């Protein structure tokens, strides 16, 4: 056994697949060459938000030479029942939202498939659609649980009494719009049947999960579905489970007997693959004059669909971030004629912390107390306090004039804002296999997916250390459902979960006294773990300028300081943090699904109209971290880092806009037209 002088973990190793990504060699789901008879699928989506599809008429003259099949509920193969009704595609005449897949054209060319899909006559009996979320609805209900498995309501102490008795109070309503994950790679699948085995090249965050789901729907033994997910062009939650593209491609391949490629058009991502629910949040905070919280009350309203209940855990962070004798949180849902909301980067935490952290800012103002001081006085974790205090030093908070609308540079109002950040540190059961190869190198296998998180690279480092070899002697294989089971790349739990299994397998191999292969399943250990109350923390600081002439907001500086366990690879970790913060900026300033209730959908369903930040929007983003290694609950000492960057960063920006202008915007995003009348 070779002893290495330097541990790989903690080194800023470059991405293993980097060279493939900068030369165009890396292959994504729609890019595999799978034979000469490849066919293309194109989805016809519902033009109404509710109703029944009574028929589909195909114009026999359109693309007649190239169309291979037109599938709809009248002729599509039956699927077995699964647990996600969004995947029961082409199975029923019921239309649950605008944009739902109603038919699929399969054709020899992409051009023919698209044209034929556009020419289909869909016979629809429309019904009125109900798409508007509001607090005033009389059909709001309390879900039993919120995602993934939290109680919907919690209460300690007598919140109403505590709030009424509080000398200083804030009672505010914040709202966040529907948001769209918008990964750069649209959801795509290339499907083929090899005998009675289904092979899917699919863009997702969980190859074994997708394989299991497809096996259920097509009534196949699980080992006969093979999902290959070598590279994924981002997911941000929207690829956490199989999406309709995988099912439709598999169905089309079965019907036509050809390999079928189905890459969703960008516009379809705004309805077919999930979104972040809009929220309306009522926050009531009570405090003593010296800034001790006495009451916290957070009620969140969100929507779900007619198909399926997804209840976002919007108010869950409020249960633990600050201490108060009386805390109440709750969730209400409206069932709307809308697509089912899903996970989007930090579901729950991201919108919930807009409400809580902006309300905290308003409380600090009401108390004439520094907003950092208010948070520190009530923080439930010393890690949070550390991030706030050290972050304030590094950001340069201390000479801040607390009064709004004081700093001006030419036409620009300038201000700064702060918000806390937190995200649960989760671990899930996974299995990995380590092999000694005849070359003397090692191969480590696990069915994980690398969406750009750096998983392939970090797992290589983890394996190298566990095997006690240099990292260039380890080859990590991921992105294939036939490899040992990995948990989903979600909830910022990937590295912790897979790394644990990889560590276990590598140590077992190292300690095996000469065997060539070892497998390790972390299930038992993970089950014994008490995961409650384990979190990463952080603090976000923003400096913004607001143009007094136009209301335009620019973020001059965005700074995040995190306590997120051991940082396994500073190069890729930093990218994850700033990526989250960038999306947080989008949430604060740019992104919103603009709903037109009359047509029953978001009308800005493309990347020209749904604005994500561009290069020019990012002037300075910095992420740093405190050393809190050993805090993490796994052999690496890590916590999740993929999502915390979007938790609190939007609130820091909103709070900075208030400080710059004196204008408090309580409905996101902070668009220029909301500021302009007050400048």
């Amino acid at each position, binding site marked *: 056994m070779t002893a290495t002088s330097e541990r790989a973990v903690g080194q800023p190793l470059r991405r293993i697949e980097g060279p493939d990504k900068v030369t165009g060699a890396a292959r994504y789901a729609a890019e595999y060459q799978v034979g000469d008879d490849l066919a293309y699928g194109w989805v016809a989506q519902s033009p109404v938000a509710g109703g029944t599809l009574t028929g589909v008429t195909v114009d026999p003259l359109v693309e007649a030479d190239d169309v291979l099949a037109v599938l709809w509920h009248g002729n599509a193969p039956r699927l077995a029942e699964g647990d996600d009704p969004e995947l029961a595609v082409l199975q029923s005449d019921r239309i649950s939202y605008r944009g739902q897949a109603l038919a699929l054209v399969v054709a020899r060319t992409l051009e023919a498939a698209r044209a034929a899909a556009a020419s289909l006559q869909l016979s629809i009996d429309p019904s009125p659609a109900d798409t508007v979320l509001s607090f005033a609805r009389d059909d709001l209900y309390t879900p039993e649980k919120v995602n993934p498995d939290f109680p919907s309501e919690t209460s300690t102490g007598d919140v109403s009494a505590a709030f009424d008795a509080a000398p200083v109070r804030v009672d505010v309503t914040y709202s966040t719009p529907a948001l769209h994950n918008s990964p750069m790679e649209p959801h795509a699948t290339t499907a083929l049947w090899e005998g009675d085995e289904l092979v899917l090249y699919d863009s997702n965050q969980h190859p074994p999960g997708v394989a299991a789901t497809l096996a259920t729907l097509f009534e196949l033994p699980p080992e006969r579905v093979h999902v290959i997910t070598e590279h994924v062009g981002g997911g941000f939650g929207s690829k956490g489970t199989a999406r309709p593209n995988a099912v439709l491609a598999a169905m089309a391949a079965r019907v036509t007997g050809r390999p079928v490629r189905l890459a969703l058009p960008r516009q379809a991502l705004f309805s077919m693959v999930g979104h972040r629910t809009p929220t309306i949040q009522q926050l009531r905070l009570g405090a003593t004059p010296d800034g001790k919280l006495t009451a916290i009350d957070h009620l969140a309203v969100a929507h779900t669909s007619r198909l399926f209940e997804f209840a976002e855990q919007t108010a869950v962070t409020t249960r633990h971030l600050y201490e108060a004798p009386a805390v109440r949180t709750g969730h209400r849902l409206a069932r709307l004629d809308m697509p089912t909301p899903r996970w989007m980067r930090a579901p729950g935490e991201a919108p919930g912390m807009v409400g809580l952290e902006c309300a905290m800012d308003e409380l600090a103002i009401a108390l004439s107390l520094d907003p950092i001081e208010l948070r520190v006085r009530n923080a439930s974790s010393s890690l949070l306090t550390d991030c706030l205090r050290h972050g304030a030093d590094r950001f340069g908070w201390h000479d801040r004039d607390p009064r709004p609308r004081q700093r001006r540079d030419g036409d620009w109002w300038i201000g700064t804002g702060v918000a806390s950040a937190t995200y649960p540190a989760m671990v899930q059961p996974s299995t990995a296999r380590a092999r000694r190869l005849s070359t003397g190198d090692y191969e480590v296998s696990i069915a994980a997916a690398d969406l750009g998180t750096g998983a392939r690279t970090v797992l290589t480092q983890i394996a190298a250390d566990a095997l006690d070899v240099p990292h260039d002697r380890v080859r990590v294989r991921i992105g294939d459902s036939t490899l040992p089971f990995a948990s989903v790349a979600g909830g910022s739990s990937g590295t912790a979960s897979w790394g644990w299994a990889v560590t276990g397998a590598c140590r077992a191999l190292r300690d095996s006294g000469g065997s060539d292969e070892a497998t390790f399943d972390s299930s038992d250990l993970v089950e014994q773990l008490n995961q409650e109350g384990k979190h990463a923390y952080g603090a976000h600081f923003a400096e913004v300028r607001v143009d007094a002439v136009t209301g335009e907001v620019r973020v001059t500086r965005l700074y995040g300081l995190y306590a997120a366990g051991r940082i396994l690879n500073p190069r890729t970790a930093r990218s994850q943090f700033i990526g989250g913060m*960038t999306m947080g900026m989008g949430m604060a300033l740019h992104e919103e699904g603009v709903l037109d209730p009359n047509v029953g959908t978001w009308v800005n369903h493309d990347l020209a109209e749904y604005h994500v930040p561009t290069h020019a929007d990012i002037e300075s983003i910095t992420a740093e971290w405190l050393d809190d290694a050993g805090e993490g609950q796994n052999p690496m000492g890590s916590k999740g880092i993929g999502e915390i960057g979007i938790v609190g960063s939007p609130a820091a920006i909103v709070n900075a806009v208030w400080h710059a202008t004196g204008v408090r915007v309580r409905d996101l995003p902070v668009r220029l037209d909301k500021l302009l009348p007050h400048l």
Partner: protein
Amino acid sequence: MDLVVNGDRHTLEMDPRTTLLDALREHLGLTGAKKGCDHGQCGACTVLLEGRRVNSCLILAVTLDGASVTTVEGLAHPVQEKFLEHDGFQCGYCTPGQICSSVGMLDEALSDDDPPELSDAEIRERMSGNLCRCGAYPNIVRAIREVAAR
């Protein structure tokens, strides 16, 4: 029609509706250029047409008879190494577009009659036609800045 891609001449027979992007990806097996939006709204499909950066998703291939195209597969440019060094990507899906765009952008700046100073702000504005949902922007700008400085 004839198309020269990365120095190789191809004779293609295609539906006139085929875009340059689909010709590259579906007919020539060159999947380096990515389809992020298919409508000119993201920059993932950026390639160099006669040396100039363009969105290949909005160009009909039939209009290019005899033209010369460079995709990321045909590049060997210092900016690629800098992307690796500065982690100028995460998922990698916008990356070929970012790279082709930065090569085209650097060239535009160099061949300008009144060459601009490529400050970070200038690089950011000139690269804004390339979205990166992973948020690798500061790293990309750093990579380009170091090449521009040469």
